[in-house]
């Protein structure tokens, strides 16, 4: 599971209203939500983000509401991974459940700048900043969560276990 793309860098406490404003929660398809992703804090994002790009942020990314529309909007926008110092817990669950790769990696999050190129090996928990040459090691996922990620999210994981 490898992700690679251009960095979009944000700060601490990027909340779910910033990721997808509530006024757009009358729809739920990822591609519709993607059109308004990050709109209130970065009006350029939705128009310029490219498939594979990586969102990088500080502490507590995804704080606020339980809306699964937030990881769906990022996924719909083509974001291949979110790397942050830390994640809010509901966002963390939601991202894994819907198959949006995320990684807590403070060093990589601190050093990356908008426009840098990152390559992420989720299973190894490794982030490589191709623009600076730096390599960072994140704490690996517990086996249970890695199984969830590898299954593609909670629904396929639950189906596999039922079968």
């Amino acid at each position, binding site marked *: 599971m490898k992700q690679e793309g251009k960095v979009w860098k944000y700060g601490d*406490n990027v*909340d779910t*209203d*910033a990721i997808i*404003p*509530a*006024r757009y*929660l*009358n*729809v*739920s398809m990822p591609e519709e939500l993607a059109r308004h992703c990050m*709109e*209130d*804090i970065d009006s350029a994002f939705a128009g310029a983000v490219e498939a594979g790009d990586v969102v990088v942020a500080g*502490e*507590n990314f995804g*704080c*606020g*509401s*339980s*809306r*699964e*529309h937030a*990881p*769906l909007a990022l996924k719909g926008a083509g974001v291949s991974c979110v790397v942050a110092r*830390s994640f*809010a*817990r*509901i966002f963390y*669950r*939601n991202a894994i*459940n*819907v198959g949006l790769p995320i990684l807590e990696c403070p060093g990589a999050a601190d050093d990356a700048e908008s426009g840098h190129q990152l390559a992420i090996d989720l299973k190894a928990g490794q982030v490589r900043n191709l623009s600076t040459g730096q390599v960072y090691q994140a704490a690996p996922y*517990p086996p*249970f*969560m890695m199984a969830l990620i590898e299954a593609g*999210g*909670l*629904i396929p994981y*639950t*189906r596999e276990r*039922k079968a």
Partner: protein
Amino acid sequence: MGHTLTEKLIAAHLPDAHASAVWPGDLVQVAVDLVLSNDITAPIAIREFEKLGVERVFDPERVVMVPDHFAPNKDIKSAEQCRSMREFARAQALIYFEVGRMGIEHVLLPEQGLVGPGDVVVGADSHTCTYGALGALATGMGSTDIAVAMATGQIWMRVPETLRIVYHGALRPWVGGKDLILHTIGRIGVAGARYQSIEFVGPALAELSMAGRFTMANMAIEAGAKAGLFAVDDVTRAYVDGRVKRPYHVYQADDDAAYARVVEIDVGQIEPQVAFPHLPENARPVSQAGEVHVDQVVIGSCTNGRLEDLRVATGLLRGRQVHSDVRCIVIPGTQQVYLDALREGLVEALVEAGAVVSTPTCGPCLGGYMGVLAAGERALSTTNRNFRGRMGHPDSLVYLAGPAVAAASALLGRIAAPEEVLS
């Protein structure tokens, strides 16, 4: 070593009867007593539920759906979402509250006796943590988690560390649950309890009403917490007895439980609080708010939409006039709160004061409808979030406070302390 209340509640819900104790960091399957979703989160949950290939929910008496966020329907797309939820709820014979009977979910479910002490509740709404006030482990999750919980009656959890917050001293005039929780979030920060469970304890909370406790538990998520719990006492029992239909269970933290951290707070030092934009942690005493004019005041929501909140606000608004520059919107949390407020004469006093009184809805709290802000406008609101753009235009500003400061601010047209109205 003993266990926290949080650990005991999780341990009591392990589907494996042989397992008896859990510790922070454990990843466990937990049996749930109630599963909740609303008109925004249910449509995705239903979509994911259908992918599971399951015909029926695990127990229709334990699955609740409430159209409250964009209901009564604010537009065609919202109407479609509400319809999809209504059709699913009817087909599955779930517990469902139609417009006219519904309320804001976190005011409604406790009022209807659907949550009791000792329960584990998961809801596709971050403020599901409100029920911690009843001694229940209640936590918000996303729609996919809720789909799996609806299908299986179980969910995975990581057992959280517990943050114990001890409140000492006597409350000052006009200080309620909202002021305590805003002050607390100001102290520990919006990530101060991230991945943790908060247990609210201490002698100062004994005198706090259920309404005040619901308000505090409601905003545990604003400190990043998974849950915010109160121990069951006589105040809790007086509320749940005769209301909760199922037998309930009371658990207590052990004296030698291990906490990640203990925070001590002297409530005698706390005056009414206001949280400035754009984070709930930007709390400060109302006396230090400075000259902040407001265009709109909202009194209501899952945080402060209970009868007690409306009484506090109406106590100040009665016989006075909302400032000519202010739109004051009051939203009772449920039909029952509305009816009680009507019978007590609160609604009449509010309308006479120049306030709008609406049917229950989450509407303005999340910039949905019923009070969306224009660019540059400022609102003081008894809701729970003041993120950028939360109540409308990204360049609008939201200040959070309790119902007393909200009413005073509506009257004076600027953020004001209740004493300023009375002097």
